[in-house]
């Protein structure tokens, strides 16, 4: 897979994760994955192999914060919350995505 394609896929995943945390509040990885599946009506499925490295990368760069707690069924779980830096990144990523979709739509319509 080329670097540029990887970058686009990573950017799209970041966008989905940040958006989900921004609206869903504090969530664990499993909850985020299920939420994305449900909201997209199962059109999108976040692979676990991509989800957790992405969450840890975003935690490292400061877009999200993590803490350990107890889930509804009293299991030990790691919970993530978006930070103000993550919200700023989300705004940028949403703009980038909107521009990309608009560009592709125009090409599909008029090219």
């Amino acid at each position, binding site marked *: 897979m080329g670097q540029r394609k990887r970058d686009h896929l990573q950017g799209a995943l970041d966008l989905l994760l940040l958006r989900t945390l921004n609206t869903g509040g504090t969530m664990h990885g499993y909850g985020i994955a299920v939420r994305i599946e449900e909201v997209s009506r199962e059109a999108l499925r976040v692979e676990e192999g991509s989800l*957790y*490295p992405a969450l840890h*990368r975003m935690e490292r760069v400061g877009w999200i914060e993590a803490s350990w707690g107890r889930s509804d069924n009293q299991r030990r779980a*790691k919970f993530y919350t978006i930070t103000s830096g993550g919200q700023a990144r989300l705004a940028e990523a949403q703009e980038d995505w909107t521009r990309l979709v608009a560009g592709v739509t125009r090409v599909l319509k008029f090219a």
Partner: protein
Amino acid sequence: MLGIRTLRRLVGSLRRRGRERDPDDELGFHLAMRIERNTREGMTPDAAARSAHTRFGDIEEVKTAMRKANRPTLKQLLWSPTAIGAIATLLVTVGAGMWFMGGPPGTGGDHAAARRTAEALLHPGSAGGQVQGAVIMTCVVQLDGACTDIDVVESLDTRYGLDNQAAEALAKWRFEPGARHDEPVPVWVTVEMIFTLR
């Protein structure tokens, strides 16, 4: 009675074990939740577990990717005040049987061992006389001065194996352990090995 050094090592070891356990717990939680859901949807316990594991894929691969994602970038390392501990440069000049090596600053007087290591690992002409430049690596200097979690962040050569040789040499270095507020702590360091043809 436990000495203070032994106690510190014990605490450090427990902390390290805690960090190593976290990915297992996080991924274990995910799998348990998926199995519960599968069971709720009517699968037998065996089928639910099998399906969850199949969907998850190779757990070790995911854990490796998580560890990699947790490592700071070179830029972060260079600007992080806690990572200033030691930026070491090892110069290796490769020529017709001639070697020069400057030891990394802050090492605990183990240059001779480092020199022997490099002589054993880096042979003149092993890069086909074609490659020169730098391999930049990061590692964690543990409390005993050993380097762990070695990662090549800027590759020089994979064809002739210089990256691997540099990492193997680094694994044998011994550093002066880092400290914060006079307390010994593991520190991230960057190490640049420069290969020059003569």
